[in-house]
């Protein structure tokens, strides 16, 4: 399907920085920054899924939220359908948000417990004055689309199981026919036997709505099942990105290697583990040079001194001193 993609990215991020100030004292002086997203550039084509992988605290959720301007970035550009989202004022931003929707990790906290499903899934349609009456018909259509019983539209979120609730939040997110869906750990809170159902649903919707996804997850094996391209994040920066097949089968960056190696996979005979030493450093004081050098099994002298530059091939980028152009 990669050939059918139109070669104009619908989303392009340039050198994006979302830093959170650390304030101390009665004067609330800014003493430093938590560099949650620290200079990220990437792009996404129509109909494509970009998997964003990393461990807790690496900034992947902040990046997702910044794309919807739920967080305000310090610097950078987010070009969506050719317009910089960061230049938009309130009214225009609201218009734009119609086209970018988000699915959160825990459907119980992202669905209003006091609203019934009918109101939840049609809220966007009403807000944007797309429909006036016949809410029921639209709700029923959306419910059918995500594989839920059409007759349960008068029920409330607590009456559904976790997997069903995630289907409701998916129905809500597709109601406005968006171009881009940011999925933040959409299956992490679900039981294993239900995760696959939701992944398949997302794949089906991608095809029928021609959606593009940013799929955020800590689990590289889930990402490998849905993404066309994968970007691996560590401590606010992308360390490697490229086509999913290449990243999984031929990882270049030592962190990607460790991440893939750490996944317990049935069937592959108990492989030799790469066990990383130590802990992820704090994003408020990242180490000098390469962010990963404190834990890297292949660390060299240069890594603690100089930040690695991007090494770019046709489809792939990696930031590591091991590779020279």
């Amino acid at each position, binding site marked *: 399907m990669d050939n059918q993609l139109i070669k104009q990215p619908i989303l392009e991020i340039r050198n994006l920085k979302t830093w959170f100030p650390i304030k101390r004292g009665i004067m609330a002086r800014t003493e430093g920054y938590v560099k949650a997203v620290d200079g990220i550039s990437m792009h996404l084509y129509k109909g494509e899924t970009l998997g964003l992988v990393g*461990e*807790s605290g690496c900034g992947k959720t902040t990046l997702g939220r910044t794309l919807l301007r739920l967080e305000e970035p310090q610097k950078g550009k987010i070009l969506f359908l050719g317009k910089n989202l960061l230049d938009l004022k309130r009214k225009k931003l609201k218009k734009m948000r119609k086209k970018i929707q988000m699915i959160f990790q825990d459907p119980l906290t992202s669905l209003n417990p006091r609203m019934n499903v009918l109101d939840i899934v049609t809220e966007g349609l009403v807000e944007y004055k797309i429909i006036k009456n016949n809410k029921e018909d639209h709700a029923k259509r959306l419910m059918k689309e995500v594989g839920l019983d059409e007759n349960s539209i008068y029920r409330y979120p607590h009456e559904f*199981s976790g*997997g*069903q609730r995630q289907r409701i939040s998916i129905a809500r997110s597709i109601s406005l026919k968006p171009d881009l869906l940011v999925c933040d750990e959409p299956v992490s809170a679900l*039981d*294993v*036997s*239900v*995760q*696959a*159902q939701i*992944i*398949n649903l997302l*794949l089906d919707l991608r095809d029928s709505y021609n959606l593009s996804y940013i799929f955020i997850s*800590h*689990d*590289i*094996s*889930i990402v*490998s*099942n849905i993404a066309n391209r994968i970007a691996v994040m560590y401590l606010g920066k992308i360390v490697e990105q490229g086509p*999913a*097949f290449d990243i*999984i*089968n031929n990882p270049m960056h030592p962190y990607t290697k*460790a*991440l*893939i*190696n*750490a*996944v*317990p*996979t*049935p*069937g592959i005979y*108990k492989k030799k*583990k*790469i*066990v*990383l030493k*130590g*802990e*992820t450093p704090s994003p408020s004081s990242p180490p000098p040079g390469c962010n990963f050098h404190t834990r890297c099994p292949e660390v060299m002298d240069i890594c603690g001194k100089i930040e690695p530059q991007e090494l770019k091939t046709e489809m792939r980028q990696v930031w590591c001193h091991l590779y020279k152009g």
Partner: protein
Amino acid sequence: MSKKLLEIDKLTVSFETDEGVFKAVDDVSFHIKNNEIVGLIGESGCGKSVTALSILRLIPSPAGRIEKGRIIFSSKDLLKLDIREMKKIRGNAVSIIFQEPAAALSPLHKIGQQMIEGLMLHKNISKKTAWNIAESWLKKVSIPDAGERMFSYPYQLSGGMQQRVIIAMALMLTPDLVIADEPTTALDVTTQAQVFELIKELRQSHTSILLITHDIGVIWEMCDRAVVMYASRIVEEGNINDIFSKPAHPYTKGLLKSVPKLSTDAERLMPIHGYVPSPFNYPSGCYFRDRCPQAFDRCKKEKPQLVDLGNGHKTACFLV
């Protein structure tokens, strides 16, 4: 063949709630041999944690009640012991590692204080000796600056470090059995790999481990045998190779097929149809029949019992 260290026999545990009484664990029997790692796998609500808590008699009472069954540990029935004898077992002969390390540590006490408590209680040693033992264990679980960390509060440590403290506490008293209830679920994958290395080292001290998890990959990498639970009952049991190469129960098969694997072959995942039923609403007969692709008439009428397929591989299904 080595001796059975723990044998659970027809354990049934029920809970009383506002909505009525339900069985969280129903007629569960399995055993753990010396120096063996047994995996207990199942989805949330299948009763795997309740089974674990029952071994240490930590079921919240009066809501929960062990209705029947025996738990034989080193030829003693734990369910018949009085509370004083039970306290000697807990932490000393059987210890437990919980899922959420932050919830298992007291936020108000220093790491060192918490660690020596169990040592002093069970080993009858001086505070100073206990402190030294605790510190040496912190080193063993590779916590940097162990001496200083003894004076830290839990919030000053990261999740991975907290879990290592918990593991050190569980191992300090060299128990015969360690129950690990989702020990890495709250941790990152690279930290998970670190914790598993530690748990594997335990083997060298001839400790048996009951590893509870929902992750089938973890079972594959860590365990000798696995017990699969679904909706309060055991559906399959066997050694790892049998479970993975010739799963007998449709639920186990479904689980193996539905788990996202690390691969980019555009093969579609095969989810198990439907959702786990509520414990108040289990179907008649086999609890899995609503979701089972191969269900037939008999599954509605009778509850299948575990059948031995040879080599200790057992399943509760009418298809075999």
